Structure formats: structure tokens, C-alpha cells
């Protein structure tokens, strides 16, 4: 009984997946039930892979990613344009390192739009209410809209 509860808890927090412990690799399908707890009830989860590459990443990992790397301004000495440019380089490099290289130009664009919805390029910091920004993005996705008509 205790083991069963422990397994359930680990599953719920995303640590119990034997196929993908971090749950953040876009190529490897994650366990649908887990994502249901993360992003809500999306039919694309049933097929294990969403067309939107962002939705294939664990919400908690995304939150940690932005909280770790985009909590403080990039640099106060650079002009705004340089900060925005360096911010683009930064997120591209760190996203690649954390979640892998976008597979297609379309994925690249989708990730860029997503990043801009939670990051202010002028300062290269995430929005004040990161959780809300992520939820807003989620509800703006075609996957969500299609399945919640």
C-alpha cells in the first residue's frame, strides 16, 4: 500500500517515468497521464506528442528553466538592442542545452513565440507572474483551443 502511494506521488511530480526521467526531451514521448496533470486535458497528449513542442515539456521544468536563467536582468551596461539580441542568443543556447535543438524551423518559431510570451527582451527577465504567463500561453495554443471548443 505504501509503495503504491509512493509510486503515485512520484508519478504525480514527474519523477517516476522510467522512459524519460526529466520529462523534457521533445523527441521522447512522456507518459500522457503525467502531462494531464501538467498542462490539462489535451487530446494530443493521448498520442504522446503534441505538435507544439512546448507542450511536450513538463510545466515544472519550464518554470524552473525560466526561474533559473531569466530571473535577473542580463546586463545593465548594454543598450536595449544589444540586450534583446543577447537575450535571443541566451535562450537559444540554454533551451538547446536543456531541451534540445528545435527539430524544424516551425518548432523554432513556436518556441520563439512562446519565449517572448514569458520573457521581456528589453531586460531578458521573465514576466512577474510566470505561472500566469505560462497558463495564458497554454490556453492560447491551438491544441487547447481545438479541444475546448
Amino acid at each position, binding site marked *: 500500500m505504501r509503495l503504491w502511494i509512493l509510486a503515485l506521488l512520484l508519478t504525480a511530480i514527474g519523477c517516476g517515468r522510467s522512459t524519460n526521467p526529466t520529462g523534457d526531451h521533445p523527441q521522447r514521448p512522456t507518459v500522457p497521464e503525467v502531462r494531464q496533470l501538467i498542462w490539462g486535458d489535451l487530446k494530443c497528449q493521448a498520442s504522446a506528442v503534441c505538435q507544439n513542442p512546448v507542450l511536450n515539456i513538463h510545466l515544472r521544468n519550464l518554470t524552473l528553466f525560466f526561474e533559473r536563467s531569466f530571473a535577473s536582468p542580463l546586463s545593465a551596461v548594454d543598450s536595449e538592442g544589444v540586450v534583446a539580441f543577447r537575450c535571443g*542568443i541566451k535562450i537559444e543556447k540554454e533551451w538547446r542545452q536543456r531541451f534540445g535543438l528545435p527539430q524544424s524551423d516551425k518548432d523554432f518559431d513556436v518556441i*520563439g513565440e512562446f519565449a517572448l510570451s514569458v520573457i521581456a*527582451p528589453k531586460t531578458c527577465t521573465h514576466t512577474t507572474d510566470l505561472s500566469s504567463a505560462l497558463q495564458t500561453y497554454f490556453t492560447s495554443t491551438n491544441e487547447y483551443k481545438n479541444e475546448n471548443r
Partner: protein
Amino acid sequence: MKYLLSLLILVPTLSTAQVCKNASKEMLRFESQKTWKDYVVQDPSIQGGIQGHLDENGGFHFQQLSRKGAFSAKLEISKDNKGFRQFFRYCAKDSIRARDLRSMRRDGENNHYVVSVRYLPDLSRFTNKPLAEQRFKMSYANLQLNLNPDAASIVAEYRPDAYVEELREKISAQLKEQNEFGVITLDLSGHDDFVCDLVQGKAQLSVQSQALSLAPLTTQTVLVNPKDVITVYQALTTQTFDTAIREANIFKSGRLISRLEAQRRIDSYDDKKSYDIFRSLMDASLTQPALLSDSDLQCVSDSFQTYDRALIPHNFNIRFSFLPLGDAQ
């Protein structure tokens, strides 16, 4: 007395490369020296006989040989020569006593003659004055020396071939010792009859050589691969930019260049260099790519290179000939 002479000289030329609006002086220097050693100029003003004269110091000079600053030739005859006056008498046009010059040689008078050829080209076209302040060393000199059958120095010579060979060795040895750029100086002391043959066009002397100069040259260091500039520009032009959201466009461009690096489609550059590349390819507001032609892109590439002016060993070609005028046409 007519003196026949023509010179063929290799001189530098300006490059016809694209000149960018904001090209640095160093870049222009670099462009200007790209092909300077491969251009042949033949003096077009040679016509008729060329007279010689004695200058106020008693030196004997060819006349009308300084043309357009391209080159000049000079024969200096020492006033102290034992046979100073005889030389002019024996070497006069149509003189039947030219063979007496041979006697002067064989008697060991050792009269001093110096032939010098100044082949320094007009350098005003060159932004970097590539040759004006250097010295050089010939790495080889291909000397052609031919004497007419009636040349005073061989007409009564017992072994003319041996004498010509002796002259060739003497001149070749001197060519190897030249170290002033733009001037070749040949000491022909003791060769009264050969000097006369040279002056009268009965001896043809031509030199083709490669020389090692210590020229102050401008060198280029590639900091940004030119093809990367093109790749980035092509990538930028395929993007859709919303000109109303400046920072978002810049952010997007940063990601794009970083992605090109990750895909190894361009070399890796630091953030600042990447930003400079990006900025050079966008319009002033940085909201959309600038409209750039191929030559514009070339200029952008050039703007990322550095140019250093330094003394660098450099090979260049020299060719000049003393020839009868008719043969030079």
C-alpha cells in the same frame, strides 16, 4: 650619335576591386596592392634616336629617358678616367675607332662606367605607397645578354663567347647584390668597348628577375568569414519581422544566429561580434533586413576584416631591357 634604348618594366597597378563607401584606408591599401606586381607598362613615348650629353659634372647621360616618372636610365662616366675624352671620340656615331675602346680595356685602364636604371614607377596612384620606402634583394635574375656581330667588344676578340660569358657573370653577380628598390646599378668599369656597344644598341641587355622586398605591406586578417555574412543575411531575409516590435525582432535575430552556429552553418562568434554582423545587415532601425546587393555584402564582409601595415617580405617581378629601338616595337 643615336642611342637606342627601350625599357619594359613591370609595375604595379590599382586593383579594380569594389570600393566600399566606408572602406577604411587600410582596406584600400590592401586592395591597391593586390595586383600591383602583375602589370606591364611599355613606355609609349619612345621615338626616334636618343641623344646623350655631358652634364656639368662631366657625367655622360642619355637624354629623354625620364618619362612620366616611370623610369630613367643613366650612364655615368668618371671624369677621372684616363680615357675619358677618348671614349667619346671613339664611341661617337659612325666612328671607325670603336675597336680602340677594346684596346683601352685590354690595356687595363680600368675606366669607370656605371649604368643605372631607375625603374621606379609613378607611385601617385597607390594609396599605400607600396614601393617607395623599401629596399630589396633579388632572389634570382635571369640576364639576357646578346652582342651584335659588329659590336666593338667582340669583333676582334679571340674568344668572343668567353668574353660575353665573363660579362654575363659579372653583371649577374652585381644583380644579386642590388638592394635599393627601383634602381639597378651596374658597374661596368674596365669594359670601355662593351659600354659603347650598350650605348649604341649593339649590345642588348635585358633582365627578368624576382626580388624579395621588405615592403611595408598591408595584410588582412579575416575576423568574420565572408560566407557567414551571406548565410546570416539570407537567413534574416527569410524571417518575418514585425517592424512594430523592435526588441522582439532583435531577440528573434539573436536566436536565429545562435541557431545557425549550432547547426554549424556559420562559424561561432562571440555575442558582440554576432550583434555587429546582425546590425550591419539590418536597416537603421534594426526592424528589418537592409536591401543589400552582392557587392554591398562584400563590403560588409570587408568591414569585418582587420588590416595591419607591416614590413613583410614580398616577392615582385622586374623586367627591363636595353634593346635597339626597332626591336622594341
